[in-house]
């Protein structure tokens, strides 16, 4: 185990960038972020064990042994009618174990962020799509259009690591143009201004398709609130001079718009048309609950990204019927296993069902789970593999502390 004085790199499991240069020190049980200016230091340190952390299993809220908790889960699984395994974030080994569990007990698997995932998947399944990866953006993109309002707060190191780096193989970083479309804080705009040229178009996100229509066409300016004719002319010029244009967004920023799918489609269509005679690509930034890891691994094992039900030796996929919200609202399940290893955010439990939680030791719940087993966080308590937002790079997570928490895989293997 690493000594507290020794500085090591943490491969961060807590957002879809999975940065592998986070320097931490540890005494074997606790860890500290070495660089106090790191944008996501607090978020990472929140995963330290606290006085009220749950480092032992509970049954109906009372402390129990692991073997008792396992026995109780097995008992329930032997009599359950319909099982839902709801993934709130886990690594590859955990997912492989989940598939085995669902296969044995005939369960349904869904991810808590499936709706956002399906928005991007729709692009792939219904039209064309031009994509790029983070290292390409860092080294090739000279014009970056960022759509949204919270994206840079949700992925605090996106600018520093990818969009606005000091080094680039093929572009002059001082001449990089960043176009912000949406409401961004003045702090973010000022930060970007320090080393790039920035233009902010403060339009309502619902107006993105109209804005892109104006960009694509040679037709005359039509009024879009927040976009002046001068701004449009300026942006057209920047984009027409781009050598490699990248469009960046995160789906959750569009959740409150009237038609998120239409917005994403309009961005993708614009980029496809742009590639007729120039180069550019899309880069949606995924959620931070292991969304990409989940969709990638389940896809290669089943052919589908999420919402599958195991029936005998085969499985069925149904986006509507196997939506966790639909299953819960319609009382189509009786047992729910929540698996949440990457966040201590409150887990919403519905008391009508038997709730089992394999969760982060700092987890909190809307009501007491029937059974709770604390499990290790990949990259903190156990080694693991997770997939980055670009769906291309996967990282090897390495254990950095020893508090004797089992991995999700360890627990599920005892159930199968």
């Amino acid at each position, binding site marked *: 185990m690493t000594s507290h004085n020794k500085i090591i*790199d943490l491969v961060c499991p807590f957002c879809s960038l999975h940065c592998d240069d986070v320097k931490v020190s540890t005494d074997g049980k606790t860890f500290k972020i070495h660089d106090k200016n790191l944008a996501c230091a607090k978020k990472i340190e929140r995963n330290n064990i606290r006085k009220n952390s749950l480092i032992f299993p509970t049954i109906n809220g009372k402390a129990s042994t692991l073997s008792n908790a396992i026995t109780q889960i097995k008992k329930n699984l032997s009599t359950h009618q319909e099982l839902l395994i709801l993934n709130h974030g886990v690594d590859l080994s955990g997912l492989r174990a989940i598939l085995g569990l669902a296969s044995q007990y005939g369960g349904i698997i869904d991810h808590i962020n499936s709706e956002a995932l399906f928005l991007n998947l729709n692009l792939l399944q219904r039209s*064309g799509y*031009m994509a790029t990866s983070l*290292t*390409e953006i*860092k080294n090739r993109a000279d014009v970056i259009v960022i759509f949204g309002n919270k994206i840079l707060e949700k992925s605090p190191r996106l600018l520093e690591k990818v969009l606005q780096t000091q080094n680039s193989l093929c572009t002059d970083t001082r001449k990089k143009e960043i176009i912000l479309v949406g409401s961004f804080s003045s702090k973010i705009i000022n930060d970007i201004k320090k080393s790039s040229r920035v233009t902010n178009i403060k339009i309502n996100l619902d107006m993105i398709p109209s804005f892109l229509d104006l960009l694509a066409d040679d037709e005359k300016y039509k009024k879009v609130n927040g976009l002046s004719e001068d701004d449009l002319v300026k942006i057209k010029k920047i984009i027409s001079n781009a050598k490699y244009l990248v469009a960046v967004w995160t789906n959750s920023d569009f959740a409150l718009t009237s038609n998120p799918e239409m917005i994403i489609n309009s961005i993708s269509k614009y980029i496809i048309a742009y590639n007729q005679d120039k180069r550019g690509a899309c880069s949606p930034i995924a959620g931070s609950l292991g969304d990409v890891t989940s969709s990638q691994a389940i896809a290669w094992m089943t052919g589908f990204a999420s919402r599958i039900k195991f*029936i005998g030796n085969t499985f069925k996929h149904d986006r509507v019927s196997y939506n966790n919200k639909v299953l819960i609202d319609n009382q189509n399940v009786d047992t729910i296993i929540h698996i949440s290893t990457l966040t201590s955010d409150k887990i919403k439990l519905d008391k009508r069902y038997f709730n089992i939680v394999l969760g982060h030791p700092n987890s909190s719940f809307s009501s007491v789970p029937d059974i709770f087993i604390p499990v290790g966080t990949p990259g903190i308590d156990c080694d693991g*593999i997770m997939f980055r937002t670009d769906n291309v790079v*996967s990282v090897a997570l390495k254990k950095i502390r020893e508090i004797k928490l089992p991995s999700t895989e360890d627990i599920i293997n005892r159930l199968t």
Partner: protein
Amino acid sequence: MLIQLKSGNVYDPHNKIFNVRKDIYIEDGSIVDKKYVSSKIDKVIDCRNKIVMPGAIDMHTHIGGGKVNIARLMLEEFHNEQDPNFDMTAIIAPSTLKTGLKYIEMGYTSCFEPALLPANARQAHAEMSDIPFIDKGGYVLLGNDDYFLDLVRKKASQSSINDYIAFVLKATQCIGVKVVNPGGINAFKFNQRALNVDEKSKYYDITPREIVSVLTRGIHDLGIPHPLHVHCSNLGVPGNFLSTIETIKAANGLPIHLTHIQFQSYGNNGDRGFSSAAVEISNYLNKIPNLTCDVGQIMFGQTVTMSGDSMTQHKNHKHAHPNKWMCMDIECEAGCGVVPFKYQDKSFVNALQWAIGLEIFLLAEDPWKVFLTTDHPNGAPFTSYPHLIKLLMDKSFRNDILNQLPKDILEHTILHTLNREYTLNEIAIMTRSAPAKILGLSKKGNFSHGSDADITIYDKNKKDPEDMFAHPSMVLKDGKVVVENGKIKEYIWGKTQTVAPEYDKSIEKNLGKFFDKYHTMKLSNYIISDDEMERLVGSPVSINECKHKRKE
């Protein structure tokens, strides 16, 4: 446990055994020579009226990695077996489980993913680890990565390029090196839409010829058994046989393997500007000793094309069927493109493509130099191999299909004049012994003492070769019976076959700095250790020997 396969008709081309009735002995997963058998035989498997061959090896099949998963997700309508409209015959980007089941049911025991991006290597291996039964491996993509192109531009020494090749092979746990559209994928990122063999890329100012020359030299110097695996420039372009020939010349006489050569053997004669150049390509194949190829035969029907060649795939997206597609630029290493496609027997072009592939098979004088592939799934799903074998072994069957195709292709192909019918000996060579040899798998594709007991047993009484090769009586993997009469008997998990040539470790220092400066991950995360392969990825590695010590 000692097993005897008794009195089978054995085909073991590596040991020059063709249709000889003999016994095979297996102990602890390996072949044992009869002279070393001393203990009591625990199990006898009666192989009278059976044909016994080493397990088949698919040396070029897209079964793992980002582009395969993109295709799976893009075409999910082909996976839903519970859907009443599901086409049970469709094997379009199958899941890992289905891939393993279909391969082992046909007697394939080792398969190799030919386009493994370094940055995507961990995922590709993890996917392939979840394919049951088979051993697997990958060819890492080089020749479009900015680091390598910069080395060539700067006229770095061959020795330092060799260090890079060897380092990447080890870091990504691969068995070979592939170059796809040499320099073209990179040029596409700078908005070049084509790159011929002697055309300079605008940014790096180097040609595909230079890239192929440097890589073939490096692989030769390092003693890597598998020659450079080349997806040539101008894939699918009418008249591309000329650039294919120039690519052969770029190897300067060193070993080179041209992949899915069917797609690279097109002339541009005739009213439609599309014709067969299989004769011209075959002449080279037959006369140049260090040249090998796999065919990439097409079959009629729905499939999905997936390739690292984003330049070509972007050009082809207008032919997508169903109408959806994806292209991606990836990590300053390469790219990918996924375009579903339906080959149609009424199409002049598709019918001629079908004929060109068969011409190449039938014109090849040496079955040790030509490998049976469909470039799964680009030409067709791998499940069409038994049908392809029948096309090669049965002239009348072949001609019956040819006669149903558009008549005007006959002006541009000589297929109808080719009377050759492949023998079982030749099929055994091209699907077993030859791929094992070209990949340096000394323990595969033969029944020598100590080799892996990967064995396929066919029913000799089945007169239809398609039926025989589709439905072996029994398949053994590592000495265990995994398929018997079409039923799965046991699930087992194979290894990842790799190679580890020597390199100067000091390259890691320079590369580490390069990664810190230009990549979005550290070099330490790029490297996949043997331990990680076994513990986290899920597949232990089996390191194969290089042909010789590194030459400077």
